[in-house]
């Protein structure tokens, strides 16, 4: 059989990847067209969906930061990260439901106004979960990852998957967290406000807000503020402190860092702990937003935050944040304007597209800042 000679035009199309690029351009154009149309059709509904997406995106951001930091330093995709997030959610659940941790500070200083008391209580719970998760991740790192420091990278990756399964199924045991869906008790009362042409005000239960207004709740505010605070705190630690400098050095060149007298193992442990603390905070915020905890809750958010980290450029802190916000929007818009079951398909298509078109992600230039 004789090989048929290819038409030069076909040859050019295959070589230049023109088809692939064209495909993505068409998809992008369709998405923009559809979203623009929705914005014009019903602007308040559209803006409301943007707010929903932001709420989700900020939670993903906190998880994605942990992925990106750990990857930046030890080149390990820590698959147990999503399950640390789950442990954070559960520890806050027990702290609130069993020990009323959110009321302790107020009990110590009576006379604090209710509003301030609730904010302080919420932050106490978040900090508690962050500490628990940091401790957990520190232990995991010492037991499971440190002995594999010089092993091939795939060994550490498989160990991470093992740790992930261990955390999930150990939590599912009856005497640990149990395999039930548990209703989460929020550390504050939910309040919802509307803003729009109908004015601004608080929504009473059972009464519809005026048509065309946008609704947001104190859950949204707490999530956004906590996430932004933690992002700035992280940026400060990485850029301005000694340990941050050590992290950047270790990320850049491990052997040389060791020669310069940096305790590389300690730096790696601290990086794991910081990443896990952020996941713990995310766990609390996620449970506050969706008011349910169960032992598998970490899997999907963990994977999506991972996609966000890849999208933003794994290893880059601002990249992970931007990637997570895009993921939140993409998911919510897919759920709102295509169909809800499509949301996961869209989320993971983003991973494939990024890997095909721009594997280093949005902010993933080679910089000295990788942490």
């Amino acid at each position, binding site marked *: 059989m004789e090989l048929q000679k290819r038409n030069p035009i076909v040859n050019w199309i295959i070589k230049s990847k023109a088809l692939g690029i064209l495909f993505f351009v068409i998809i992008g154009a369709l998405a923009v067209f559809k979203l623009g149309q929705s914005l014009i059709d019903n602007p308040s509904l559209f803006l409301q969906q943007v707010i929903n997406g932001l709420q989700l995106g900020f939670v993903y951001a906190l998880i994605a930061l942990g992925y990106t930091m750990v990857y930046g330093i030890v080149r390990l995709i820590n698959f147990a990260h999503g399950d640390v997030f789950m442990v954070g959610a559960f520890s806050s659940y027990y702290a609130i439901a069993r020990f009323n941790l959110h009321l302790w500070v107020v009990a110590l200083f009576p006379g604090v106004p209710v509003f301030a008391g609730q904010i302080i209580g919420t932050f106490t719970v978040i900090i508690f979960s962050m500490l628990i998760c940091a401790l957990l991740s520190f232990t995991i790192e010492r037991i499971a990852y440190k002995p594999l420091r010089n092993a091939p990278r795939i060994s550490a990756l498989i160990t991470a998957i093992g740790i992930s399964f261990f955390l999930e199924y150990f939590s599912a045991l009856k005497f640990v967290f149990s395999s039930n869906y548990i209703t989460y008790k929020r550390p504050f009362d939910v309040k919802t406000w509307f803003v729009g042409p109908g004015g601004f005000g608080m929504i009473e239960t059972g009464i519809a807000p005026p048509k065309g207004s946008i609704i947001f709740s104190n859950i949204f505010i707490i999530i956004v503020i906590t996430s932004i605070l933690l992002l700035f705190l992280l940026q400060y630690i990485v850029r301005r402190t000694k340990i941050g400098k050590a992290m950047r050095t270790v990320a850049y060149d491990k052997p040389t860092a060791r020669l310069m007298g940096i305790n590389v193992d300690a730096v790696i442990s601290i990086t794991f702990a910081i990443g896990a603390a952020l996941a713990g905070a995310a766990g609390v915020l996620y449970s506050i937003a969706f*008011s349910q905890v169960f032992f598998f809750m970490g899997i999907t958010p963990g994977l999506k935050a991972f996609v966000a980290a890849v999208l933003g450029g794994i290893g880059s802190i601002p990249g992970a944040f931007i990637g997570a916000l895009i993921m939140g929007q993409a998911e919510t818009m897919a759920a709102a304007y295509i169909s809800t079951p499509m949301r996961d398909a869209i989320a993971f298509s983003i991973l494939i597209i990024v890997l095909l078109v721009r594997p280093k992600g949005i902010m993933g230039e080679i910089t000295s800042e990788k942490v």
Partner: protein
Amino acid sequence: MKKKVILSLVILVAIAISACGPKAAKEIKIANLSPLSGPVPTFGTSTTNGFNLAVEEWNAKGGVLGAKIVPVVEDSQCTADPAVNAANKVIDQDGVKFIVGEVCSSASIPISLIAEEKKVVQISPTSTNPNVTLNVDGSTKEFVFRACFIDPFQGLVMAKFATDKGYKTAFVMADQGNDYVRGLAEEFEKHFLSFGGTIVGKENYTGTDTDFSAILTKVADSGAEVLWLPDYYNVVNLVGAQAKEKGVTAVMMGGDGWDSADLDLAAADGGFYSNHYSPTDTRQIVVDWVARYQAKYDSVPDALATLGYDATNLMLAAIEKAGTDDSTAVAKAMAELSFEAVSGKVTFDAQHNPIKSAVVLGVSGGAVTAVASVAP
């Protein structure tokens, strides 16, 4: 060795002879196959309690057709193999012609095959799988009935309830991967439309979703009066908590998937769901039943005990109506029966599923109470 063999043979023969003892002339045997061990023993215990109470009451009134009713209870473990063994045992050894059971569809279906083959009348108190009463080719099994309504039936009941409350618009949410939820969603939609209502929106989700904000924003925007959410309590908890925060004012409604001690009463507040039975029902027949059950077992009867009691009553009423203990005649009488049971007035449709009313329960102020009994 030889001695042992002979000895065991003798014992076997003795057992065989004793099992075929002379039959008393004036008694009718009725069997109850329930999962008294296995995965759901509490279901079995409740059902058997209901069964025993019904038999006791009929015997106190003088039995059925003048004959004393003899109950035969066997453990069928909610599993196919033990259920088949138990069914064969009661039919072949005890000579039973009437079976109340099983609780689980997975055990009721194998039993129903034996019942058809050996012409034994079977009524399952709680198995909801359509194949319990249907053959593979879709025809109805002559000797097999059930005392509970099948799942999608609740879609009809709640569509009627919503219409009766004056609601005109509904938004339907369904887990596309769950047959129970999909069945209820389709059935509700069909009947709500036929009652003159409008479906203003329809959204699917998947069982792993936790973020319902995008859908709920649409629900709020659509201005629907009813949010039909026929899922299990864990999804109801999630959706309910988020709905309040997204400004959704629609009344949430669902089916018996809501019925759980873990239902978040704050999240589901203001909602309604249907069920087979509720001990808080204020109809006289229910009040009496709860009192009688409490007097005997010192606990409030659950849905399983009630349906076990109803199924037994239906069986005995059918025997009485037939006027004979011939199983073919009893099956025919059962199909044409109209009976006032605790869980509602029962007649059977062509597929041997009961047409009866469902109880609608309302969640309000941290309590669940029966608010209506809706007949189809």
